[in-house]
């Protein structure tokens, strides 16, 4: 190795001084930033008065960690990153990448199908409910909601921040109709979808003239109005207390219970609640696949192309004789329909629903999943749902952290904190989401992936 030129050594010394100075400044800033809310804690004492505790230790540890991270970034990461930037980027597609691209989807689908058996095989019947229900079903509900909203946001380019309203309509439709009229899940599932899409059209109509952030805000307002009505219309919805005792779905008429005519007895199995969980898992998996399948089909139909054209340029659409009002409404209605399906599934799975499940935070999470995944990309949306929902669900199980932070440490508290932080981080890292390229719906000679820079952002 050739000896380094003197000025390189000198500049590295200067770099280090600068890095240290930056780290100290960052630390100071962090100190000021966290001083009020971390340094002090408001607690209510025995007499019911609000008093202050101090947490200097915690404050200084956080400041030290942040300053240390800044220093490590400047000394270790930044040089490496700038080195990497200088190096020519390999353009030849690696065979591994081709292989992964071709097989990752079939593999993921296969894994989703065998997942319950893998879980039962690994942790046995005892621990399976937690992994299939809390993790598997939870993630799949968000995958389905993400795919449904993807039609509105990703394809048609209309930002809908009130999507959860349609989820709520589906859930309450199922709950009320099942309780009042005793209709079965299999009749109410499509009915809930139809009702939701009806609401989609109803709410969609007035907002269609709006563009950009205004559309987002009005849909948010509608979502909140529906939630507030659910809270205040106590006669119908039982208000905050919610509806309980919602009938659970049956295996085509066979209930999942310990009775003689129950599922386990009929099939000569020993009774365990896991069967119902597995059944629910496959139900939501099938619903999610249905969503994906219909979306793939719709993209290749004129209506789907019109959605994407609408996202690209609405005025051009109108100049081609496309009725943009109807096109937007179909997007709203289709998206809402899948939310309605998911909602009725949700009600049936929980057996209990309340307005708490349909807050703005839910809408925001679903939008986040769609945008983080990459608008329009179904694979991206599924990955984002797995990462964001699955990741935060896993937080519930980080018991080993208690060993580090003491027994009062409750990792679940930090779930939404990290969720919000991750949203910011992923946006800064990849503003267009994980998979931002677009696949053409039709081709003459060869299908070429379209780079993200060209794909429209939508204006609604």
């Amino acid at each position: 190795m050739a000896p380094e030129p003197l000025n390189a050594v000198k500049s590295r010394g200067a770099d280090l001084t600068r890095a240290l100075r930056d780290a100290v400044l960052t630390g100071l800033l962090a100190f000021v930033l966290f001083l009020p809310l971390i340094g002090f804690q408001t607690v209510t004492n025995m007499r019911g008065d609000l008093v202050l505790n101090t947490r200097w230790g915690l404050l200084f540890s956080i400041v030290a960690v942040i300053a240390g991270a800044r220093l490590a970034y400047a000394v270790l990461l930044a040089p490496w990153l700038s080195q990497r930037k200088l190096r020519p980027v390999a353009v030849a597609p690696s065979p591994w990448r081709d292989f992964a691209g071709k097989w990752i989807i079939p593999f993921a689908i296969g894994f989703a199908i065998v997942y319950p058996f893998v879980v039962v095989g690994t942790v046995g019947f005892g621990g399976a409910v937690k992994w299939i229900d809390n993790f598997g079903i939870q993630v799949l509900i968000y995958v389905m909601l993400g795919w449904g909203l993807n039609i509105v946001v990703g394809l048609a380019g209309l930002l809908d921040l009130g999507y959860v309203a349609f989820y709520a309509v589906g859930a309450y439709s199922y709950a009320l109709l099942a309780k009042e009229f005793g209709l079965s899940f299999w009749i109410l599932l499509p009915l809930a979808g139809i009702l939701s899409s009806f609401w989609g059209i109803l709410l969609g109509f007035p907002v269609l003239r709006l563009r950009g952030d205004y559309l987002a805000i009005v849909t948010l307002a509608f979502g909140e109005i529906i939630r507030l009505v659910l809270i205040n219309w106590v006669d119908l919805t039982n208000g905050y207390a919610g509806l309980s005792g919602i009938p659970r779905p049956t295996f085509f008429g066979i209930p999942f219970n310990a009775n003689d005519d129950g599922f386990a007895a009929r099939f000569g199995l020993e009774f365990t609640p896991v069967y119902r969980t597995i059944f629910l898992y496959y139900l939501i998996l099938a619903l999610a696949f249905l969503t994906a399948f219909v979306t793939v089909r719709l993209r290749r139909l004129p209506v789907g192309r019109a959605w994407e054209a609408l996202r690209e340029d609405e005025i051009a659409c109108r100049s081609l004789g496309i009725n943009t009002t109807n096109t937007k409404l179909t997007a709203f209605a289709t998206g809402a329909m899948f939310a309605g399906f998911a909602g009725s599934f949700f009600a049936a799975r929980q057996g209990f629903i309340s307005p708490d499940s349909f807050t703005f935070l839910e809408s925001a999470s679903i939008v986040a999943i769609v945008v983080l995944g990459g608008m329009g990309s179904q694979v991206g949306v599924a990955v984002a749902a797995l990462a964001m929902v699955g990741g935060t669900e896993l937080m519930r199980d980080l018991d080993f952290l208690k060993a580090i932070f003491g027994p009062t440490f409750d990792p679940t508290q930090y779930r939404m904190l990290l969720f919000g932080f991750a949203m910011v981080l992923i946006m800064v890292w990849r503003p267009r989401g994980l998979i931002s390229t677009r696949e053409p719906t039709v081709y003459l000679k060869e299908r070429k992936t379209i780079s993200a820079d060209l794909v429209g952002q939508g204006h609604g």
Partner: protein
Amino acid sequence: MANAGDILLRVEHLTMRFGGLVAVDDLSFEARQGNITALIGPNGAGKTTVFNCITGFYKPTEGRLGLRHGGPGVWEVLETLTDSGRRSMRHADGALYLLERMPDFLVTQQARVARTFQNIRLFPGMTVLENLMVAQHNRLMLASGYTLLGVFGVPSYAAAERAAIEQARVWIERVGLTARADDPAGDLPYGAQRRLEIARAMCTDPVLLCLDEPAAGLNPRESAELNELLLTIRNDYGMSILLIEHDMSVVMEISDHVIVLDYGVKIADGKPDEVRNDDKVIAAYLGVADDEVAEVEAEVGL
């Protein structure tokens, strides 16, 4: 049936005001079957406003815009249609449309007037082929049973889609983009984007093609190719074209009829040669009063 030279579009007393500004003032002209009619004028003359009125993007303050489908006999019902308050009326010879009463998308869907834009409006993230498929939306929508049948993949839709792809392929070939058919439209060079936009408008199967400054930003070679394309469209398809152009040389070469606008008022109307030598037109383009034209011409050596 109609013959070339019959009146296709009749613009009468078109006026468009934006607040106090009169963009188009009492404009009347006609566009004829199988002709290239050019609407020219200096910047800000109101040409694009006229286009936006014809294609339904603006609602004119006053005026009547009649469009004929079928034979010339349909003009008989013009007054009846106007008085009826309806948008269109059938007639033994065909049908008559009043464009000022129709929203933009119906102008294309029913009256079959297609347009392009001054600042190209393609779908940049969709391929060349997809752009042309979107243009055939209404036909395909019908074939897919308004989506319902299409979701289940009925064979009649598959056949309709094949036919649509075939028509798109023909147009892609005609505008010389075969090699780039599967590339995103946003990746094409400027001249190719202009040609694609014209092909896309033609895929809507129009009776009247409205082009808003199709030669803007083209180099001389691309400009010549464009002239050729427009002549082909007129000659091979018998298409009637209404054209806004800024560049006189393009207009003079290919148009059959020229209308000159200045400050929203028609100042000349006739064959290219007649218009070329009109003092008012020259004055408008040079930006001087009529009586100074000779003086200025002498100065610049015309």
